[in-house]
């Protein structure tokens, strides 16, 4: 095993980790602000991938326009779902959890009815690979990494420095105090749902050309997102980034050296983190 081999392992981990970051960031954002484990998040990811497929394949739009439109469509859908289903159960933990599961099942079932069970593909806008020092990097994965970094940086800056971002953090810390300061809790939640759904849409759009698209991809995605946010800290965007990258590296290294038991490593990691830091790596009590 050579230097190039080990470098490839790390690059694979980075690429895998960035896919997890993309999916988990929106999931974590919703929990952070709304205290809602949105199990339907994976289905928004699936719908984002299908939206990109339809926009590129059926309407012939270019890939980046399709990404932007997928994000907008998912944001609108997210707002609708919030107002129709989540808002009536705001502050009720158990009912909103069941509703989130039901919405996930409903969207998954409707996806199957509308799109069919066949795996579909989005033509790669950036085909081919480049080799650097014996390490293979596919162009489409490089694009995913770059766009994911841009999205995460934008989200982090938005939440930290923008007026609405500050409002989100205020609502996240103390809803009643925020409301007393004149912050609209409902409008903040609406915005949070829109951003989170748009992120899921972006993840689906970005990963669609790499993998395939079918109505079942959301289920696996949301499971990974849950592992990532528990490791990183529920509700923390830096935690989602750290958790996603950590899981990506662990799985890449595990696949290389441990083989068949790799899938368990994510859960082992969750247990270890919970034992020593129950709030997650970047979470707070």
């Amino acid at each position: 095993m050579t230097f190039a081999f080990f470098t490839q392992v790390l690059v694979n981990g980075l690429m895998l980790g960035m896919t997890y970051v993309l999916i988990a960031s929106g999931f974590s954002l919703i929990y952070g602000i709304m205290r809602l484990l949105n199990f339907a998040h994976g289905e928004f990811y699936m719908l984002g991938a299908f939206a990109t497929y339809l926009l590129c394949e059926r309407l012939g739009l270019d890939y980046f326009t399709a990404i932007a439109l997928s994000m907008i469509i998912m944001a609108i859908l997210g707002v609708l779902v919030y107002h129709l289903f989540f808002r009536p159960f705001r502050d009720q933990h158990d009912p909103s959890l069941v509703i989130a599961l039901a919405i996930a099942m409903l969207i998954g079932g409707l996806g199957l009815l509308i799109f069919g069970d066949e795996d579909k593909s989005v033509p790669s806008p950036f085909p081919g690979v480049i080799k650097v020092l014996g390490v293979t990097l596919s162009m489409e994965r490089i694009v995913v990494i770059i766009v994911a970094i841009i999205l995460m940086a934008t989200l982090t800056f938005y939440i930290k420095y923008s007026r609405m971002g500050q409002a989100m953090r205020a609502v996240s810390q103390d809803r009643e105090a925020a409301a007393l300061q004149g912050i609209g809790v409902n409008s903040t939640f609406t915005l949070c749902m829109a951003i989170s759904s748009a992120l899921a849409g972006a993840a689906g759009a970005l990963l669609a050309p790499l993998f395939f698209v079918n109505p079942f991809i959301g289920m696996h995605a949301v499971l990974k997102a849950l592992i990532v946010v528990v490791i990183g800290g529920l509700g923390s965007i830096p935690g989602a980034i750290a958790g996603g990258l950590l899981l990506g590296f662990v799985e890449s290294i595990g696949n290389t050296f441990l083989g068949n038991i790799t899938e368990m490593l994510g859960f082992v990691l969750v247990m270890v983190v919970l034992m020593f830091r129950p709030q997650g790596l970047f979470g707070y009590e």
Partner: protein
Amino acid sequence: MTKVNRNLWGMVCGVFLCVSIFLPVAGFPATEKVLKIGAIFPLSGRAATWGLAAQKAITIKQEEVNAKGGLDVGGERYKIEIIWEDDKYNAAAGRMAAEKLVNRDRVKFILGTQCSASILAIQPITEPNKILFLVNSYAKEVLSVDKPYSFRMVLTSNEVLQAMYPWMKKTYPQLKTAALIEPNDASGWSIEKDCKRSAEQNGYQVVFSQFYERGTSDFYPLLNKLLVEKPDFIDFTGAPPGDQALIVKQVRELGYKGKTFAGTTINPVQFCKIAGMENAEGHINNTHDLLGSYTTEGQKKYHGDYIAKYGEPFDPVTPKYHLYLDILVQAIEKSGSLDPTVVKETMEKVEDWKTIFGPAKFGGQDYYGIKRQILTPVYISEVIGGKLVNRGTTMPVLP
């Protein structure tokens, strides 16, 4: 919104969601004699591709029989009603579905799932109740002497590979080493054993074998390790078609130049779209182009029926599932009885079943300990220029 309104709204939402998920299907007029047949397949979840393919093929046969006035059972006509159940590729759901079919719907015949774990959970219900269970999954233990009411209606990886590996040896004598990638579950473990045995029997050295979790879409880490062993070909027979295409795409991106191989059916259009036309070139598989060479009249008719019902494009994964109801209908009509034991005995005796693939028979006495494995011709194809090219057909010879 008040608490009362919220609760009311919650109930409305709940009812709407339940109704939309569990909407019932229409049945037959009460005057017609109806034979209810249970069908348990993965109709949702990641393995739904297989379950829905089976549903399409079985429905074509069901409609064909009903259009002719129904099944002829000793001079009486019975329309076929299929009661579909979803096992979600899951043993617990499969068992629950079987309990319902046997105890509530009182079916005597069940067409079964592609999930080995589900079948193994269902058999303790079907066998003591003498329910004829026509199964699909690949696990060896699904067929055994103590399960006389279970018949396997598709060729498993064992039968397919017993035919494909000798063909491969003859066609590509320069290949010496193999790598195996299979899903990490009962089906994958069983198929990996079949692949390993077939490879070794044909003189190949297995230099790499690893399982992956279903749902995996990034195979780079696994493939990076595989490439170190420099295998001449990679066999991923147990992987679902979409995963196969992803493996082909990603292993080519990583620079692999050897052959790719899978003893399963694929949809070439879909496969090439995911894998990429260049990457898919030369992929060896067990798919039969129903409009190509080696095509029987029955296959041509099935192709026509499929297009008439479901439209283009044709799904080449579906024809193998046509055998289920086709053989059950023949067995019931030959035996002139709806008693599962009588039908079972007919299935044991008849040696020449007429199927869309040509003559078929049940075998496997030596290998499984009981003659319950259907044996039909195995078709071998390669993907060339984005299309299937039939390379040959051969009957499986069980070890």
